[in-house]
């Protein structure tokens, strides 16, 4: 049973024209290459762990090599995600338009993709000559890592062109390419001198792309280039380097590994056993399986620090099972997205580590605070799930014999949780390494379930393409964050807080409003780095416990993973489940409200005590 049965691979190219055949060949080569890179990445991280424990030896280039391979993986996988749900297109606005306008909006949306492809290829090329430097650990020129994305950009252009030809839209796509090329060539000669900071224009242009249903990462990149005309301080090669830098973090390698673990868990049939166990335990209750998903997410959160990884894992593991048990697909996916918020609140948490770094708060104290906040959020979500899931027919109550049997059958699945939790908790491995071990464990489960080479390949390819789509979005948010920082948008807000400078209630209210607005458009990590140090002094001055306030900052910003237009967790779940983001934003509302209630409780607590 292949993973593709649950979430079919990106749309198959059909037709037997020349373009279709070339496209199929390119997609085939890219798919095999991406799967191979993922396999190499996994092998490398596992070898590092083995060397450390069995040979007491370190391999210092391992981390850099992992990062480089991850960038390569994203470059190879990004073109494959172009014309699927993985492209992260927000189609809600386009769908409101009359049918005859759609071809026009598609041409416009494709202009963004063309521009983005051109920026990546030519920017990557400029970096080749401008960057210089040799990687001290790998001994090869640094530009290679950036060059990967340059090749990725060219591939994006080729795949887009062929795809549209296959769809019978040769003329429209040529028009898109012509307009895109004209923009690309023309922008350096345009200079609009307005007093507004360039980051505002970047936001506006990206928003236009978003409304036209251009893939979000490409809207970001195209906008970052167009604002050069508005006085942006990021020249073309720096746009590309800032994108590559955004994905060059070892911790992010956990994403493809957890995706792979989820895919193989499902393909091997082991996920079924976990779900069967959950169903036997609480399936007869209302929303029993959804509650189990929540509980699993809480346990998972205790092992990982990345909500994106948790969302990807839940979306590939639990969402199909929830749907099979009668949940509407969008609601099932919304539950996954909402419960994955917990990951960055319940320790370990990447968000708290970033906050501690930016503000000098004690990591230990923050994590304790996160533990309680996470518990509160889980309770609120449990209540929301109980109230919202009514239409699902409960399963018959299982006998105690059935329960025991299902528990024993689920042992391999529990083993995965044990690896992740024990690995990190006892301190044998880092988060990334734990993710790799989890992936390897599920690989063994897949072998045990006699998965064929083709099914295993399908799982690796699937995980690679999904990770590429997610990685590209994380990277392309980089130039925006850079410009917001340069334009000192945070300084403006700092001024506002000082003007207000009153009671704890006033500071809490203003801070939450600011964070709610900021979180709409900013990456969580960047938002914490920019606004944590600014809001904290005002809170301390108003007599609020800094740790408690830090927890409020993180909880507030994490909730934004679920809000439009940039709900990262929604896009991740949408990417994996192929459910349009617009449907998910709607379906997640009850759970969003539940999380806002928990935020309100945390704020009230901070003011009263």
């Amino acid at each position, binding site marked *: 049973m292949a993973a593709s049965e649950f979430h079919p691979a990106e749309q198959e190219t059909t037709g037997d024209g020349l373009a279709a055949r070339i496209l199929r060949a390119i997609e085939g080569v890219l798919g095999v290459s991406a799967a191979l890179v993922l396999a190499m990445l996994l092998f490398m991280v596992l070898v590092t762990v083995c060397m450390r424990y069995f040979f007491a030896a370190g391999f210092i280039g391992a981390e850099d090599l992992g990062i480089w391979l991850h960038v390569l993986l994203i470059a190879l996988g990004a073109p494959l995600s172009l014309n699927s749900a993985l492209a992260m297109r927000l189609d809600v606005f386009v769908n409101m338009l009359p049918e005859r306008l759609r071809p026009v909006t598609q041409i416009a949306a494709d202009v963004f993709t063309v521009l983005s492809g051109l920026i990546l290829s030519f920017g990557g090329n400029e970096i080749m000559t401008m*960057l210089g430097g040799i990687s001290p650990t790998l001994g090869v020129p640094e530009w290679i890592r950036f060059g990967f994305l340059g090749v990725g950009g060219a591939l994006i252009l080729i795949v887009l062109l062929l795809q549209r030809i296959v769809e019978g839209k040769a003329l429209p796509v040529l028009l898109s390419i012509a307009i895109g090329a004209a923009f690309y060539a023309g922008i350096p000669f345009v200079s609009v001198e307005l007093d507004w900071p360039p980051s505002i224009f970047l936001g506006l242009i990206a928003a236009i792309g978003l409304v036209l249903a251009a893939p979000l990462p490409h809207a970001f990149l195209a906008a970052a280039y167009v604002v050069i005309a508005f006085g942006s301080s990021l020249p073309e090669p720096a746009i590309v380097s800032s994108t590559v830098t955004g994905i060059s973090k070892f911790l992010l390698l956990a994403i493809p590994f957890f995706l792979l673990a989820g895919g193989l868990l499902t393909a091997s049939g082991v996920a079924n056993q976990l779900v069967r166990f959950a169903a036997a335990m609480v399936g007869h209750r209302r929303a029993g399986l959804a509650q189990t998903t929540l509980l699993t997410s809480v346990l998972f959160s205790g092992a990982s620090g990345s909500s994106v990884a948790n969302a990807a894992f839940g979306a590939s593991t639990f969402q199909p099972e929830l749907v099979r048990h009668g949940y509407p697909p969008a609601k099932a996916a919304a539950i996954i997205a909402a419960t994955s918020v917990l990951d960055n609140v319940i320790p370990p948490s990447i968000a708290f580590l970033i906050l501690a770094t930016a503000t000098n708060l004690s990591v230990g104290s923050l994590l304790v605070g996160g533990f309680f906040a996470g518990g509160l959020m889980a309770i609120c979500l449990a209540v929301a799930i109980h109230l919202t899931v009514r239409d699902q027919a409960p399963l018959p109550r299982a006998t105690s014999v059935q329960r025991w049997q299902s528990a024993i059958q689920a042992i391999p699945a529990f083993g995965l949780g044990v690896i992740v939790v024990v690995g990190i908790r006892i*301190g044998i491995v880092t988060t990334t390494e734990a993710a790799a071990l989890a992936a390897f464990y599920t690989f063994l489960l897949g072998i045990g379930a006699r998965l064929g080479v083709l099914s295993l390949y399908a799982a690796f390819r699937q995980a690679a393409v999904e990770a590429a789509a997610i990685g590209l979005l994380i990277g392309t948010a980089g130039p925006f964050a850079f410009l917001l920082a340069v334009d000192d948008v945070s300084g403006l807000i700092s001024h506002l807080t000082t003007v207000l400078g009153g009671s704890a209630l006033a500071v809490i209210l203003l801070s939450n409003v600011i964070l709610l607005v900021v979180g709409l458009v900013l990456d969580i990590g960047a938002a914490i780095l920019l606004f944590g140090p600014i809001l904290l002094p005002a809170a301390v001055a108003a007599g609020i416990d800094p740790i408690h306030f830090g927890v409020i900052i993180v909880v507030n910003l994490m909730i934004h993973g679920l809000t439009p237009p940039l709900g990262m967790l929604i896009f991740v779940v949408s990417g994996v489940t192929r459910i349009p983001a617009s449907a998910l934003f709607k379906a997640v509302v009850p759970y969003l409200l539940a999380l806002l209630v928990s935020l309100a409780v945390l704020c009230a607590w901070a003011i009263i005590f």
Partner: protein
Amino acid sequence: APALVRTAAARTTTITIASLLGDDKPETKIWVKISELVEAKLPGQFKFNIVKSGALGGEKEVAEGVRLGSIHAGLSTVSSLSGWAPELQILDLPFLFRDADHVRRTVSGDVGADLKGKLQAQNFVVGDFINYGARHLLTKEPVTRPEQLKGKRIRVIQSPLHTKLWSAFGTTPIGIPITETYNALATGVADAMDLTKSAYAGFKLYEVVPYMTETGHIWASGIIYYSSTFWGGLNDEQKAVFQQASTEGAAYFNQLIVDDEAASVEISLKNGGKLLKPEALEEWQKGAQGVWDDFAPVVGGLDRIKAIQSA
């Protein structure tokens, strides 16, 4: 292009500067100081946009931004720039420098001038050298002699020089980013690390590695640097002003670090941290010998290293 009427303010050149830390840290204060010195001599000509808290990335990303034209100036430890100028690693050699004065004399002399030239060739114009302080050994259990390190897992920065050093003492080096280090030490992925005194208190590492042995094995040297494109656009008077401001800024920075270290030690001791003196210093130095031999060809030969040592 619709060019609007240029106002007086448009004659001001805005410089984007990256600082890794917040307002109250030497990394940001130095730029405030430099901007004041420049403003006093060249009023209204430059606006320093100091982007704080690492919002523009870490040392390596800032250096890349400087080369690609998005950032005009920054600070960096020399080890982050060794991919461009490997010769810089002479300043990172373990147990080579006795104290801060020894470091200052070296970077003010021929060695410093030579390194400035190497960096200039890589499009980094050096304002001056700075000193982040010495790196010391941090452990969960007390360690005063090198043999006590055997078998421990030590967190290192991603650098062959550091890896080589700690391998020589029989430890297993693990590369862990600084943001993950606290957790890694708390859970036992690593049992030891090395860092400067200020950063030790800044990251509250006394909570997880309470023993600091004052090995002072590596002096963390750094530079104030400008992009060569920005520098090339300055006239001679402006260049002289920036050069002078950088030198005064460096002295100010070095003093801030010394004060910060004293305060950091006080905070650490108050929170359960313990200071230890290393024993058998010659044993420690012997462990470092392999690093000197390995890096001699890269940094200009063993004779040059010995000359610095005896200077």
